[in-house]
């Protein structure tokens, strides 16, 4: 009981901030001032909202650069920013600003978009709840992971990185508490790149790793 894994679930709701940008300079200025929650939402929120798969541009800033201001060079540079490389959202914000500043230096006139193509800054509120499910042995995951809601996957695999001091997911953090018994499993779970995927695929990938580990 003491070392059980408590399965939690979550749901996100988006909140408009009323802040918007119509050109690249405005985008830079807004990014400086928006709450951290906006940076988080525009990098990770896509996993839990209606969005047509566009793996080429995994964050909203890159997608806007490509589809609204039609700056392919900037879109590519923004798309490659991996939010998992940064210890916190302030560092991620700084990198984002760095890339945009660099592009602004290269351009004589920052490109504008029509009014209905502006970048709208959104933040989210997360509601977390206990599902009442306890997992006592890592082996149990193999049977149960498929029935995890996408909210649970998001909470334990994505949101966990904001909560954990080491920026890691809840699954591998729990496996690590078994005194080195699951080192391979920990490594395999941590090797998953959650950035260019969706939550369905993440759940499948986790299941495949767990099946591979426990069922050979």
């Amino acid at each position, binding site marked *: 009981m003491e070392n059980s894994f408590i399965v939690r*679930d979550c*749901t*996100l*709701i*988006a*909140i*408009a*901030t*009323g802040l918007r940008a119509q050109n690249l300079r405005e985008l830079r200025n807004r990014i400086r001032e928006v709450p951290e*929650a906006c940076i988080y939402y525009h990098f990770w929120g896509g996993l839990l*909202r*209606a*969005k*047509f798969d566009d793996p080429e541009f995994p964050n909203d800033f890159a997608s806007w650069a490509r589809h609204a201001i039609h700056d392919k060079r900037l879109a590519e540079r923004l798309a490659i920013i991996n939010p998992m490389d940064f210890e916190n959202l302030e560092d991620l914000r700084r990198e984002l600003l760095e890339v945009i500043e660099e592009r602004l230096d290269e351009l004589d006139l920052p490109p504008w978009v029509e*009014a*209905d193509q*502006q970048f*709208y800054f*959104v*933040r*989210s*509120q*997360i*509601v*977390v*709840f*206990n*599902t009442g499910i306890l997992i006592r042995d890592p082996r149990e995951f193999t049977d149960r992971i498929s*029935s*995890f*809601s*996408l*909210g649970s996957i998001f909470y334990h695999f994505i949101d966990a990185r904001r909560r954990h001091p080491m920026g890691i997911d809840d699954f591998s953090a729990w496996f690590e508490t078994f005194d080195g018994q699951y080192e391979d499993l920990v490594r395999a779970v941590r090797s998953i790149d959650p950035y260019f995927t969706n939550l369905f695929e993440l759940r499948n990938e986790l299941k495949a790793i767990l099946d591979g580990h426990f069922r050979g």
Partner: protein
Amino acid sequence: MAEYLERYRSIVGDAEIDHLKQLARRLRGIRAVHVNSTREGGGVAEILHCLIPLKRALGLEATWEVIEGNPVFFDCTKKMHNALQGNLTAIPAAMLKEYEETNRRNFERLEDVLKEADIVFIHDPQPAPLLQFCENRKGKWIWRCHIDVSRPYRPVWKYLRAFVSPYDASIWSLSSFAQTLPHPLYLIPPSIDPLSEKNIDLDPPELEEAREKWGLDPDRPVITQVSRFDRFKDPLGVIEAYRLAKEFTPLQLVLAGSSASDDPEGAEVLEEVRAARGEDPDIHTLLLPSDAHRSINALQRLSHIVLQKSLREGFGLTVTEAMWKEKPVLGGDTGGIRIQVFNHHTGFLVNTPEGAALRIRYLLRHRDRLREMGMKAKEFVRENFLITRHLREYLTLMIAVTHAATDRIELDG
């Protein structure tokens, strides 16, 4: 009541249904009242018809009230609707007086229900002033705006803003629609009910019967636009697109709509459409009763392509309905259509009758692409725009507004 929810399990999966139950446990017994201005006709009424029973099935005490008004009131709110969508429509002071008076009368009728509710959802501008009459309210009041208010006619928005600012929160379909207000602006796109008469699967014999009833030739493709007869839906542009495409390919056009009790402009627009149709026997303009959901369902299913060539659009639930029926959609490049229609994936965004005609010709020439896009469209709706997702977001919002306004709400136990 619980069975009502279970019917959705085979469509959206176990995890989604269990997720809803988990969330609703925290809200059991809460009294939630929805108020709008029509019981039939239009997307809002359709959503409420399925949202209310689902909330009840999850243990909430959900009710739905409809405000009553005279023709002057509805003329005023129609003008307001148009002005909020950007038309330069001034509203006479006498009409605005009737608007406020109608709300006062409705508040007196609904006072007990509204004062006792834990959460009140007020839909659109028609009942927005109700809050100002509700002194010593107990619950949270939320204004749900279904309209595209991204570039409103400012004097009318300024007038309405005074009524909606004091709400505890508002809900908008898209971030681009949201106007700055002194409370949280939640973003929740609307949805369709896959089990409603409008969207449920229909047997082939029923479809054949409908085809015969509407006089549609089974050997020639059908393109359809289903919407109110409203200038923002650009029915005349649809007729033009049909005529341009018909020069190259045999075609039939259906323009089908119902009249909503809160839309006095509909008859005028229908006359314009009938005049534009002229003597063309392949243009079918159908004014259907507001409860003709099954007929609309059949028309959408009998179509090869569905159009929603709106010039302005809140969300465009007819787009969602058509996509659920595996139809690629040619949609106006505006509002909520943009988050549903993706070029070459679920349909095409079009800006002119010429653009629509071009895509009609393309899809009818490449039937394999048409089918492929239709299937993709259905799966996209399943994941994003069904009532269960909508309900999940409503439940989340209800939890959020009844807790501290922090970015993170932890409900343990």
